[in-house]
């Protein structure tokens, strides 16, 4: 166990440092280098935060799905720890996405919360994540909690496309597509440095996400090891 600890730590430190410098780079590009948007002015800079965090939220939900499938198939504790860690960090990122979304909404639409399709989807994703964590905490029996969590992870993931469809249809029904459609990314009039800012921030978020994930996974593994020591130590 000692050997893998050091190799794992070194790998994680590399990701950590990479994440750190790409975050700084992203901040520089996002706040300083990129020019203000023609319509929204400065507020558009929040988009460099908003888009990457939404994608990270969906990525973590996908990892919960993968972890849950592997766990149900092979019943290895490792996959369950992966699913739980991804869910915990997923809640964090989804919650932040909702906060950013509403802050971005204020200057552009003048109101803190609109039932815009993307915000609604993020809110639903957040509710599913919270449901997952609540379920895991309210089931005492370890192995049963893991199986039930895995089932919610899989069913939740299968439901995402259906939720997408129903929310988008529901949106187009009510809100006539305005020129400033937040659902459609304003790619046409984008300034090259804006594109750079967006991609750098995206890389920063992804690296930081995987750094947090590996750290949380490490924590889960160590807790498992402590439990095993108490248990097998006795036999």
């Amino acid at each position: 166990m000692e050997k893998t600890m050091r190799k794992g730590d070194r790998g994680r430190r590399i990701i950590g440092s990479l994440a750190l410098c790409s975050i700084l780079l992203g901040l520089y590009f996002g706040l300083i280098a990129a020019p203000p948007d023609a319509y929204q002015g400065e507020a558009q800079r929040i988009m460099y935060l908003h888009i990457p965090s939404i994608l990270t939220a969906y990525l973590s939900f996908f990892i919960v799905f993968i972890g849950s499938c592997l766990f149900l198939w092979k019943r290895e504790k490792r996959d369950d720890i992966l699913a739980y860690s991804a869910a915990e960090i997923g809640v964090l990122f989804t919650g932040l996405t909702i906060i950013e979304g509403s802050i971005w909404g204020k200057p552009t639409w003048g109101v803190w919360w609109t039932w815009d399709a993307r915000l609604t989807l993020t809110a639903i994703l957040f509710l599913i994540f919270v449901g997952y964590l609540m379920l895991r905490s309210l089931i005492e029996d370890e192995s049963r909690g893991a199986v039930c969590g895995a089932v919610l992870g899989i069913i939740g993931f299968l439901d995402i496309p259906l939720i997408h469809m129903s929310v988008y249809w529901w949106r187009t029904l009510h809100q006539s597509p305005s020129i400033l459609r937040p659902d459609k990314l304003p790619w046409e009039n984008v300034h090259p440095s804006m594109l750079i800012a967006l991609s750098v921030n995206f890389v920063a978020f992804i690296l930081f996400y995987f750094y947090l994930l590996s750290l949380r996974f490490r924590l889960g593994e160590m807790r498992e090891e402590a439990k095993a020591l108490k248990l097998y130590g006795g036999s």
Partner: protein
Amino acid sequence: MELLKQTGWLLWKDLLLELRRRESIFAMFFFGTLLLFVFHFAFEIPPDKAAEMAPGLLWLAFLFTGTLGLTQLFQAERENHCLEALLLCPLDRAALFLAKVSFNLLLMLMVELVVFPLFWVLFNLTSWAILPSLILVAFLGTVGFCVLGTLFSAVTLKARARELLLPLILFPLMIPIILATIRGMEILLRTGQFDEAFSWLRLLLGFDVIFLTAGFLIFEWVIEA
């Protein structure tokens, strides 16, 4: 074929227990009608917008009544370790899933049978022509609710605060059903034809098929956990 026979027997047992105790069915009836009245008082529905708001209120009543039924679904199995007795039998776990889904479906359809005409009268809707399509949309929505509801009723079987946890997990996942049935019914009431509502109907059908198969495969691991 064996699966259907076992499902039949399980359904026979559930219906017999329900007819004797009549716990769920009466509670769901009164709760459904009560909700309808409460909604009627709570919202001042102008006659012209009745077609717009009515389906939403109707479906809220069905969803809450259905959740009430779901929390009682495995009650008989909880007494006397009967779930263990069922797991001991060479019973196909999918049969247990199918039996519980159809049992809850029957309960909800019976409630809908009573609440629907009441809803019709209360909101004094007139067009009879679209009734069959309304019923089709309601049926598909109820099937989707029962399939996912039964699966998560089994998931939260041994959890603490079961009655709170079940709606919390179930409702976000039910959003496609909620939107599809309410929008579908509203379009039917407003326009009277099927063309626009057809996409919602396809969504409902897709939902039911996907989660019926997912339930079939996953239920075994949930109930044995």
